[in-house]
């Protein structure tokens, strides 16, 4: 056996690049016996697969009759049914033609032009968060910057009143159990989902009656058009919170860590923070991608690199290895903030390319620019870094740093 089959061991969680890189180089379309799924690791295969959405369904929760992996407590199977119904109503868990109709409702809210108008808000939020910590000489990047920033932005987009924001953050924490490995994860997950539905319901009622220019009003307009059911409006509101939260946290933490570990690149960013931030953010997205992998379900038998992926097979494609593919990137393991072109697949590709990509970019650019403008450099409090046991997200547990 080329590699051991457990993708949730501490070694693989700590360093996904060694494990998935070995697969990419020796068995790029690999059958994982333990979890009964295909592991796809090359850049070109990932692009091909994501652009052939008709062969690989995104309706994973609806189309996968198998129990979740890693295993959950048998007594929680009822909760899992709730999770399936909930997740299944996310627009990203649909295929065309429904997916296109749903995406069209929300797409305009996230165009580069629309999100450029959010840049001043993001810049100001970053400034305030950094004002809080600057004098202290230390911060936990996760707690003090990376977590509050996306919640502030999303709460503003949703029109959530300020006193409710800590509660929203608590719910978001629970929703994050979706990609984890704990056997009892269904409990916090369903609590988060039910809490979100309960919290968002009156907001949706209100926006149906009095539409504004916020994101919930946009989803509610989809209900009026007959594209979304009420449950779908509720679920997709909370999808914004989930999808825009953990991913952005990871971009900001993993990116900051990359700069800490590469002082030469930090020096380069400091020379011209405003000018370098754009390409630097792309390199952060590539080098230590916020999302490690995404799953699909084969809609028919498909041949890939001599292997037959059977109809209904689980297919998981790995961004972490594709973004380090030497056939695509020169010196793939080098962190180079001037890298161009940089055709990373941190946001996927094809018709399901991440809706919030531009928002993540704006947040990343503003944070890395501000850090470089305001701070001389950082040191880690502790060299030992810990990651969440997730196959989906590349999430540090915390990132405490200090500076002179």
């Amino acid at each position: 056996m080329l590699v051991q089959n457990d993708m949730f061991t501490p070694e693989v969680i700590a360093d996904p690049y060694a494990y998935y890189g070995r697969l990419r180089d020796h068995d790029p379309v690999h059958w994982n016996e333990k979890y009964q799924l295909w592991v796809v690791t090359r850049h070109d295969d990932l692009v091909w697969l994501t652009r052939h959405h008709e062969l690989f369904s995104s309706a994973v929760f609806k189309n996968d009759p198998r129990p979740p992996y890693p295993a959950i407590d048998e007594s929680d199977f009822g909760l899992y049914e709730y999770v399936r119904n909930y997740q299944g109503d996310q627009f990203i868990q649909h295929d065309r033609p429904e997916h296109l109709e749903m995406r069209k409702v929300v797409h305009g809210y996230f165009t580069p032009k629309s999100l450029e108008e959010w840049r001043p808000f993001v810049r100001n939020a970053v400034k305030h968060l950094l004002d809080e910590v600057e004098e202290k000489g230390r911060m936990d990047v996760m707690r003090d910057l990376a977590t509050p920033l996306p919640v502030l932005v999303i709460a503003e987009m949703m029109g959530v009143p300020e006193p409710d924001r800590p509660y929203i953050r608590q719910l978001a924490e629970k929703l994050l159990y979706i990609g984890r490995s704990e056997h009892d994860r269904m409990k916090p997950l369903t609590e988060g989902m039910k809490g979100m539905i309960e919290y968002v319901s009156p907001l949706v009622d209100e926006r149906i009656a009095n539409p504004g220019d916020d994101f919930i009003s946009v989803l509610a307009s989809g209900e009026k058009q007959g594209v979304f059911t009420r449950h779908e409006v509720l679920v997709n509101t909370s999808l914004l919170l989930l999808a825009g939260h953990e991913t952005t946290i990871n971009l900001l933490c993993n990116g900051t860590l990359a700069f800490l570990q590469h002082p030469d690149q930090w020096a380069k960013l400091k020379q011209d923070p405003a000018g370098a931030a754009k390409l630097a953010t792309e390199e952060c997205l590539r080098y230590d991608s916020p999302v490690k992998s995404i799953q699909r379900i084969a809609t028919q038998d498909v041949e890939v690199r001599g292997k037959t992926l059977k109809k209904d097979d689980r297919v998981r494609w790995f961004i972490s290895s594709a973004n380090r593919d030497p056939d695509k990137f020169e010196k793939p393991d080098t962190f180079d903030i001037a890298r161009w072109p940089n055709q990373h697949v941190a946001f996927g590709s094809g018709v399901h390319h991440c809706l919030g990509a531009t928002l993540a970019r704006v947040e990343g650019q503003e944070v890395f620019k501000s850090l470089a403008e305001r701070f001389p450099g950082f040191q880690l409090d502790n060299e030992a870094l810990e990651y969440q046991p997730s196959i989906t997200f590349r999430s540090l547990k915390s990132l405490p740093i200090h500076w002179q």
Partner: protein
Amino acid sequence: MARQLRVRVDHLLCVGNAMCETFAPNVFRLNDDRQSEAVNPAGDSEEKILEAAENCPMSAIIVEDAETGEQLFP
């Protein structure tokens, strides 16, 4: 008569999100690599073409006035 446009898709940026096909279906078509190509710049109105360009998540669509060379997007 409507002015002539030059429409290009930057394939270093295009991720095949295919929203351009939705906004200007007679102009944009996905090729074998599932990246967008402007197959007929006169296929839809200027308004639709600019809408397609604005809705590209990668800002990969470049629209110019064919006669003056003036860049209309991005």
